[in-house]
């Protein structure tokens, strides 16, 4: 019987980290995700599992502590919210370049700039298209419930280590601050074995010295490294797409939405069906790799697709690419920390596609 608890999304990330056998968390306070480190500090995981928690002097330091520690093969993570994640981008690019497995959590707030502390999904481009400099990708998971906040810490670490690539949990203030019940998984042990082919744990006589770096001044070799990365990304695209479909079998219209927007669309879908409008929902769970094929498969059956996000329209670009003009695609979003209501979303669907 799994342990059941009422938790905030941010607390679920923290408890998930401990139970997933995370070795270290490095972070810096920022609203609306400060509960992650607050929970960890109160919980004293060094006594439960030996996990280290350190409050760094900045987000820049946090991600570089992650970079250093990840090089030793341990499970390490950080979390922040939008402005802090922007500060981390250089370090994240280094982690991707040096192929370090690590987990980053972004509890998104409204932007640009200092923006607001209310929920937003306006960091989609930053998360799914690279974010920092250079050609790279993060594996991006979008939880839509507090349970998934907990579960995706496990999934994120597993995928990060499977592909030696940073993984990102892209959440938002709504999922971070809300409470729901969570089934807590059993404690998983911390890592005790480290791949000697690349980790820096001290050069032993039986091997060459290992070097963690993203630098190669030889352009030809750097291109080869890039090609290797791209091949890896291709493999991830083929194998790791995750998504959920709700009531799509008989649907004439489709919502595409992730995270908190997917929850709002689920309600809008119920309201629509009460009125006899057949709506379905496709919820991308991995934002990168994006569920291109499932959307392309559904598109010709639909009279219209509404992409709903708390942004000016970022994911809708990927939806349009997937749909490839098979059916009309419209975007609806609120910005700057405003959250749309289910009624509002339904009205937009009706106005854009039905009562034209």
């Amino acid at each position: 019987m799994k342990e059941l608890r009422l938790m905030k999304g941010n607390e679920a990330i923290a408890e998930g980290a401990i139970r997933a056998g995370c070795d270290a968390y490095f972070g810096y306070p920022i609203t609306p995700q400060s509960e992650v480190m607050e929970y960890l500090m109160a919980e004293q995981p060094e006594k439960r599992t030996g996990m280290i928690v350190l409050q760094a002097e900045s987000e820049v330091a946090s991600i570089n502590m992650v970079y250093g520690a990840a090089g030793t093969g341990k499970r390490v993570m950080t979390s922040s919210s939008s402005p802090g994640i922007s500060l981390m981008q250089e370090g994240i690019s280094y982690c991707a370049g040096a192929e370090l497995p690590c987990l980053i959590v972004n509890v998104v707030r409204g932007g640009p700039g200092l923006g607001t502390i209310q929920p937003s999904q306006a960091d989609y481009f930053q998360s799914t298209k690279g974010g920092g400099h250079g050609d790279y990708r993060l594996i991006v998971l979008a939880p839509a419930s507090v349970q998934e906040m907990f579960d995706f810490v496990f999934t994120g670490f597993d995928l990060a280590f499977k592909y030696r690539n940073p993984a990102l949990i892209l959440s938002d203030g709504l999922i971070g601050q809300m409470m729901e019940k969570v089934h807590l998984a059993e404690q998983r042990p911390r890592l005790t074995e480290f791949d000697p082919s690349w980790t820096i744990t001290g050069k032993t006589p039986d091997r060459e010295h290992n070097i963690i770096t993203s630098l190669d001044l030889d352009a030809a070799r750097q291109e080869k490294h890039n090609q290797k990365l791209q091949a890896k990304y291709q493999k991830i695209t083929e194998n790791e797409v995750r998504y959920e479909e709700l009531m799509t079998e008989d649907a004439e219209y489709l919502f595409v939405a992730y995270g908190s927007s997917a929850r709002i669309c689920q309600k809008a879908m119920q309201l629509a069906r009460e009125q006899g409008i057949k709506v379905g929902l496709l919820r991308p769970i991995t934002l990168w790799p994006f569920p291109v094929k499932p959307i392309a498969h559904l598109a010709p059956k639909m009279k219209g697709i509404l992409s709903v996000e708390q942004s000016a329209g970022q994911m809708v670009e990927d939806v349009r690419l997937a749909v490839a003009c098979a059916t009309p695609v419209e975007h609806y979003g609120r910005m700057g920390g405003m959250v749309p209501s289910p009624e509002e979303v339904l009205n937009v669907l009706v106005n854009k596609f039905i009562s034209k």
Partner: protein
Amino acid sequence: MDIKDIIKPENLVYKKTDLMTDKILSYCPGCGHGTAHRILMEVIDEMGIQSETIGIAPVGCSVLAYDFMNVDMSGAAHGRAPALATGIKRLWPDKFVFTYQGDGDLAAIGSAETIHACNRGENITIVFINNGIYGMTGGQMAPTTLEGMKTSTSPYGRDLQTMGNPLKMTELVAQLPGTWYVTRQSVHTPRNVRRAKKAIRIALEAQKEKKGLTFVEIVSNCNSGWKMTPVKANEWMEENMFPFYPLGDLKVEGKLVNNQ
């Protein structure tokens, strides 16, 4: 004695440590980096801790230090070496962890990471090479550039009114309770090399005791950036750098040395 006799093993009087790789150093002839690398690796060799040592290379002339130092290493983003070292040391408290950084890396872009790693008393060793200039990018002004010193971004000499003062990072970190051993050395004469090597040994040994951060500044030259011959650069360093950055221990066993 001809060459055949000289290379006989029994006539060996000096051998490069195995902890320096056979890669050709990327440093300019006359530069202090090569010597600093060598004595650091010699100390690790003599302590027998190669398999327990993890080093962090910076961004700057010594960006490729991991190619020359035959220990496990990570290459940091510019200025972030103390953060990497912190992350590693916290998870591997019994390993020996050092950073090797220049003045631009440590005292400008990485000043926050330096101060906070020192202030937390991370049990790591920072080796700080101070030559008063950005070498790799072609001789620009550094935070440690002396007053009046000409560089490519202070072509009329460093003007304190508009460009600020040279920063004594070592004096600054000596004041922090988290540092255990803070010293300033040089490697331009055999005598100074011996002293600097002894200082590095003290710094690394201290990690066993977990008493706090150990910090070894090495005042060095940059004959290319300073636009001088190696010999002239060393003379200039003695006449100009040492009066402002005086050699010697600043803090020993957690206590400030007189006059600090």
